[in-house]
């Protein structure tokens, strides 16, 4: 019970609403290290967790035709300073499904923690799958986060991922999401991270638009300061007839921080198109001066500009 309470406290600090875990209409899963502390399901949703030595294996299924009206709340984390959590997810989202997941990963005291998430997600046809992941780390930076996902998006389906790590130190972060998008399906991947201290951020996101008239957007917003470093590799491949992709990366660098952006765009079908934009630089001087001209000091003005970009 103590772990459960501590997890929910950390969840609240990360911006989550713990009352969701008491609401019978909202499905949830709470996992501390390799222990399932809470689980509640709603009709159409099946979650089968299996505890392993260093984490859990989860089979998640959303049955055909079910539209889950409220976001499914997931809470993963480790409360002690040290530990390892490996989460393997096999998700099958059947045809004509609508589901939104809100995952909070909390490591408030991390000194030596490794969090690995490997997901295989298969989305059927005419479905909507949204995965929002919010991380909350402590201030010590002793954490390594490795999220990996392979996703197949079925015909006329929509996949949205939104990853944000804006509270606490990032530590070492190495994300790799790859998605394959079928006919008339839509992919949208957004990542927002704020690194400082000696944080190391590595992001690799790829979209393969194999389907006819498929659409893809990969968007990254990264801010680094102090001696933090970031590297973003965004890859979009357009194979399908009339497929359209766009890659958009903005990184703001302050102090001694370093940032690198590598957009890779490839067009295989003659009727396909991919565009990209990438910008790395200091905080825009004019933006900062504009805010300062309303009476805010420079540091606060920079926070507003950077905070807006990461919002």
């Amino acid at each position: 019970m103590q772990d459960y309470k501590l997890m929910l406290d950390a969840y609240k600090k990360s911006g989550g609403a713990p009352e969701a875990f008491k609401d019978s209409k909202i499905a949830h899963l709470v996992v501390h290290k390799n222990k399932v502390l809470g689980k509640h399901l709603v009709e159409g949703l099946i979650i089968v967790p299996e505890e392993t030595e260093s984490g859990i294996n989860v089979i998640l299924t959303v049955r055909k035709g079910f539209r889950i009206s409220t976001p499914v709340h997931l809470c993963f984390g480790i409360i002690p300073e040290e530990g390892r959590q490996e989460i393997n997810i096999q998700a099958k989202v059947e045809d004509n499904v609508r589901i939104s997941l809100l995952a909070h990963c909390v490591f408030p005291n991390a000194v030596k923690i490794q969090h690995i998430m490997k997901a295989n997600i298969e989305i059927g046809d005419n479905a909507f799958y949204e995965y929002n992941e919010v991380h909350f780390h402590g201030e010590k930076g002793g954490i390594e986060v490795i999220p990996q996902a392979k996703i197949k998006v079925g015909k006329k389906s929509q996949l949205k991922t939104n990853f944000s790590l804006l509270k606490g130190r990032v530590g070492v972060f190495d994300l790799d999401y790859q998605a394959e998008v079928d006919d008339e399906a839509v992919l949208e991947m957004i990542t927002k991270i704020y690194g400082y201290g000696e944080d190391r951020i590595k992001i690799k996101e790829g979209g393969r638009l194999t389907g006819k008239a498929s659409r893809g957007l990969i968007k990254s917003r990264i801010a680094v300061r102090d001696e933090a470093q970031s590297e973003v590799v965004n890859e979009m491949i357009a194979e399908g007839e009339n497929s359209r992709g766009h890659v958009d990366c903005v990184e703001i660098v302050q102090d001694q921080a370093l940032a690198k952006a590598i957009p890779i765009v490839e067009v295989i079908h003659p009727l396909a198109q991919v565009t990209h934009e990438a910008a790395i630089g200091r905080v825009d001087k004019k933006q900062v001066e504009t805010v300062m001209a309303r009476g805010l000091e420079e540091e606060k003005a920079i926070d507003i500009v950077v905070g807006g970009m990461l919002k």
Partner: protein
Amino acid sequence: MRSDLLILEGVSLKREDRLILNNVNLKVKKGSIHSILGPNGAGKSSLAYLIIGCCDYLPDEGNIIFCNRNVNSMPIWEKAQMGLTLAWQEPARFEGLTVEDYLSLGMKEKNSDKIMEALEFVLLDPQKYLKREVDRTLSGGERKRIELASIFTMEPKLVILDEPDSGIDVLALENIVEMIKTLKKRGTTVLLITHREEISQIADRTSLMCSGLIVKEGTPEEIAQYYKTKCIPCPEKIFPADRNNTDKKKVSEKDARL
């Protein structure tokens, strides 16, 4: 008690040995609209950045006095807290910052009613705009109006309006003029920077600027007259109606530098 809210005494600004502003003297009376009229490249925006204190715009010579205080090296935010601000010619765009956030930046305490009022003041529907981001999705005209609305919520003592009419369609021009007049009525002194003589006409006083110099100061009518009789022809943007008579107006450059 001086009635001049802003005074520039012999202000000069150099860029790599090039004189951008040359011994500029200016007095802006409290509660007035004072326009700076001049062609593109005359140094008007540089003057605005110098007064407000933008990075790299410190005067090489002279004094900027605001509210009886020398503010030469004062940072922008401190001047803004004193009540001196700028509405930019091409205002910055902000990803993730809503119109509501932006309009509340200059307010001592956030006041939702006042934010709504400000949007109505610039003829933007609050329901449509409040939660929109001040980003690239706004048109140039919308962004300019939001800039003016931010002045309305801030209620500065003095605002420099840098080309408030640029990017605004002809039909909306009248609105902009009314908005500037309203700012004055509400107690804000306006330093209006423009290259259009018809906008300059709403001012109480006008200074004609050319090549970094204030060439002449007077009423808007006097300045118009001065140009017609004494000044070398400037780009037609200032006095478009007179562009067919430029030959008659040619005088020596020496005369222009009176």
